[in-house]
C-alpha cells in the first residue's frame, strides 16, 4: 500500500525528466542555505555533463534546522542523506564516533595538499580527512575608512583591542545614529559565543584547563567580558543583545556602524550591491592583546559522507567535484572571481586574478592566523577556536550564551554572569563525567 501509493504519487510529480533510461544513482545532499551553496545548485549542469549516471537531490535548509535534521539522522542511523554539509565543530566529533566515511582515498588530482593547513587540520581526526571543505572563513575587522579619516585615525592592519576601543570612541556619533562598533550579542553557541570565545583567546582566557575544569572564574575571562560589555555599552547599538550576524550586517550596510568584527564572508556583502557604504570599507585582522593569539575564529562548511549512505561512491564523486580546483574555476568563469567560495585552497590565493579581490589577502591572513589545534595562550585539552569540539559544547555554549546576553542587556553584572557561567558549566561537565 505504502509503496504503491508513493510510486503512484511520485510518478506524477518528481519524474519530470521522464525518459532518462540510464541506471541512475540518486544521492541526497543536505546543504545550508547560504549564497555559495545556492550558487552550486545553479551550476549542476557541469556535474551532470561529467557524471550523467548520478542524480543529485537537494535538501536546502537554514542552518539550525539543517543541523537538527542531519544530527538526528546520523545519530539514529537514519541513512536519509548521502552527503552532509557540516562545520568544523561537527567533523571531529562525528569522525571520532565513526559516523563519517574517510576521504583519504580521493584521487591525486584532487590535490589534498592544496587545502589550507588550518582548515585541513580542523577536518582531520587521527590522520583521516573526514570532510572536504567547501568554503572556509575566519573573522576580521571591517571598518569605515571615511569615518576613521574624519576622526583623524588610521586603522593598523593588525590592531590591538586598545586601538579598537579608541577608534570606537572616536567614531561614535549618537546624533548621527552612528555606533562606533557593532558586535554580536544574540544568545547562541554559534552567535555571541562564537565571537566571545574567539575574543577570549586573545585575552589569554580558555574554556577549560588541561583537566577540564571550567575557567570562567579566572581573571582572563573577567577581562574579556568587562572589555566587551564596556565597549558595547558605550559605543554599541541599542538592543544589541538581539543582534546576530544578519542584524549587524544590516546595520553596517546602512552606515550605522563604524566597525564590525565578524565573519570574513561578510566582506563580500558589505562591499556588495545592498550596501550603502560599499566603497568606504576597510579591512583589518581581528584584534589582539599582544599575547600571541588574535580574536578571530575559523570555520569551514564542509561536505562529508555519512557511513550510513548507501551510495558512498557516487557521493564521493560529488564531493570531489564540488570541492575541487575545477569547481573554483567553473564559478570564476560563470560569475567572476569575487564569487568563488573562499578559504579552502592555497592555489586560489596564489592566483593573480583572485588576488585582485579586495578582501582576498585579509581573508587568507585571518584564516592562517587561527589554529584550531592550539587555539589559546595557555594549554587546553580541546580542539576548536570559537568552540570546544566536544558533544556537550552546543548545550554549554547555548547556556553560557544566554547568560552573557543577559549581561549585555543589563540584567546581570559581569561578575554575576561569570559566576553563573562557572557554576552551570561545572555542573554539566560533572554530569557528563569529565570532572568529579
Amino acid at each position, binding site marked *: 500500500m505504502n509503496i504503491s501509493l508513493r510510486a503512484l504519487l511520485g510518478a506524477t510529480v518528481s519524474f519530470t525528466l521522464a525518459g532518462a533510461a540510464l541506471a541512475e544513482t540518486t544521492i541526497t545532499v543536505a546543504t545550508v542555505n547560504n549564497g555559495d551553496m545556492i550558487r552550486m545548485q545553479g551550476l549542476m549542469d557541469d556535474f551532470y555533463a561529467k557524471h550523467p549516471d548520478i542524480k543529485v537531490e537537494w535538501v536546502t535548509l537554514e542552518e539550525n534546522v539543517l543541523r537538527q535534521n542531519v544530527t538526528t539522522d546520523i*545519530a539514529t542511523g537514519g541513512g536519509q542523506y548521502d552527503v552532509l554539509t557540516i562545520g568544523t565543530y561537527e567533523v571531529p566529533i562525528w569522525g571520532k*564516533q565513526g559516523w563519517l566515511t574517510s576521504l583519504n582515498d580521493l584521487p591525486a588530482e584532487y590535490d589534498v595538499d592544496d587545502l589550507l593547513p588550518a582548515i585541513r587540520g580542523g577536518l582531520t581526526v587521527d590522520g583521516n580527512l573526514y570532510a572536504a571543505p567547501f568554503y572556509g572563513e575566519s573573522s576580521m575587522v571591517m571598518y569605515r575608512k571615511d569615518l576613521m579619516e574624519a576622526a583623524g585615525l588610521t586603522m593598523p592592519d593588525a590592531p590591538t583591542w586598545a586601538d579598537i576601543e579608541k577608534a570606537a570612541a572616536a567614531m561614535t556619533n549618537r546624533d548621527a545614529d552612528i555606533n562606533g562598533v557593532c558586535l554580536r550579542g544574540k544568545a547562541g553557541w554559534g552567535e555571541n559565543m562564537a565571537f566571545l570565545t574567539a575574543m577570549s583567546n586573545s585575552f589569554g582566557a580558555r574554556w577549560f584547563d588541561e583537566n577540564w575544569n571550567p575557567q570562567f572564574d579566572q581573571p582572563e575571562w573577567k577581562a574579556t567580558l568587562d572589555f566587551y560589555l564596556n565597549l558595547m555599552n558605550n559605543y554599541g547599538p541599542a*538592543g544589541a543583545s*538581539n543582534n546576530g550576524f544578519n*542584524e549587524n550586517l544590516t*546595520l553596517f550596510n546602512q552606515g550605522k556602524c563604524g566597525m564590525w568584527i565578524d565573519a570574513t564572508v561578510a566582506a563580500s556583502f558589505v562591499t556588495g550591491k545592498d550596501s550603502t557604504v560599499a566603497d568606504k570599507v576597510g579591512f583589518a585582522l581581528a584584534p589582539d592583546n599582544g599575547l600571541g593569539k588574535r580574536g578571530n575564529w575559523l570555520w569551514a562548511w564542509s561536505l562529508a559522507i555519512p557511513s550510513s549512505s548507501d551510495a558512498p561512491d557516487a557521493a564521493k564523486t560529488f564531493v570531489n567535484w564540488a570541492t575541487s580546483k575545477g569547481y573554483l574555476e567553473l564559478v570564476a568563469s560563470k560569475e567572476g572571481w569575487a564569487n568563488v567560495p573562499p578559504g579552502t585552497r592555497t592555489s586560489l590565493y596564489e592566483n593573480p586574478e583572485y588576488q585582485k579581490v579586495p578582501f582576498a589577502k585579509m581573508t587568507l591572513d585571518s584564516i592562517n592566523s587561527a589554529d584550531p589545534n592550539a587555539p589559546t595562550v595557555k594549554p587546553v585539552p580541546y580542539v576548536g577556536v570559537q568552540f570546544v569540539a566536544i558533544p556537550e559544547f552546543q548545550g554549554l555554549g547555548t547556556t553560557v550564551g*544566554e547568560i552573557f546576553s543577559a549581561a549585555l*542587556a543589563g*540584567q546581570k553584572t559581569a561578575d554575576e554572569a561569570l559566576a553563573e557561567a562557572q557554576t552551570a558549566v561545572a555542573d554539566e561537565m560533572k554530569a557528563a563525567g569529565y570532572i568529579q
Partner: protein
Amino acid sequence: MSTQSSRLAARVMVAPSVVLLFIWMAVPLAMTLYYSFRLYRLLSPDRTGWVGFTNYLWFFNSPDFWLALWNTLALVGGVLIITVMLGILIALLIDQPVKGQGMLRILVIAPFFVMPPVAASIWENLFMHPQNGLLAAVARGFGAQPILFLEEYPLLSVIGIVSWEWLPFATLILLTSLQSLSSEQLEAAEMDGASALNRLRHIILPHMTRAITVVILIQTIFLLGIFGEIFTTTQGGPGSASTTLPYMIFKQAIAAKDIGRAAAGGIIAVILANIVAYFLMRGIGRHLDA
C-alpha cells in the same frame, strides 16, 4: 432513546478513533517515559544506562525551572486574556452591519494563514527591531526613543506575537456565536429600556459562554506547547526572562541533544497540562453541556 443495539453500534463507531488515538498517545508516551529514566545523549551514544530520577531532578534543580513554569502559565494566560477580550470586542464590532463584511473577515483571519516561524520572523525583524523595525520608525517619528521590545519586554513581546497569531481563531468562534443570537431577544431588551452595557452583560455575554469555553480549552492545549516563536525571537532571553517549559525542553532536545532530559521535561509538561486542564474543566467545563 438509545436502545441496547444502538449503544453497541455507537461503541463500534467510536472505537476506531479511540483505538488510533490511544496508540498514538500510548506508544510515544511509553517511549518518552522509558527515555526519561535513561541516560541518552544523541552525540554520546556510548554512554547509556538507567539513571533513575536524575533527568527529572535536573529540571527541578535548574535555576530556570520555576521561572519557566511561571512564564509558561503567564504566556498561556496572557494570550488567552488578550485574544478573548479583543476577540469579543472585535466580534461585537464586525457583527454590526458594515460594508464589505466578507472582505473584512478574510482580513481578520489572515494572520491564521501565516506559518508560525514566518510570523515570528516578520515581527522580530520588520516590526520590533530597534533600528530597522517599523515600530522604531514610528517612535522616532514622534520624537521618542524606540522601545527595545525583545530586550526589555521579552515575554510581553512573545505574548503579543502569539496573540496576533491566535486572535483570528478566537474572533471567529465568538463572531459566529454572536450571529446565532436571536435579534428578537435583543430588540425586546432594547425596548424594555436596557442600556447597551446591560444588554452586553445580561444577554450577549451569557450567550457566548460556550464559545468562550471552547476558545479557552482549545487554545490552552495549543499554547502550552509553544516554543518556535520564542526560539525565533528572543532565544528564551535575555538570560531566561522569556524561557518557558517547552522552550527548556527544546534546548535540551535540540541544542544539548539530551534525549533523556527532554523526555523527562515532556513528562513534566504533560503533568502540568493535565493539572491546568483539570482546573479548566472544573472551572468552565460545565458550560460545554449547554
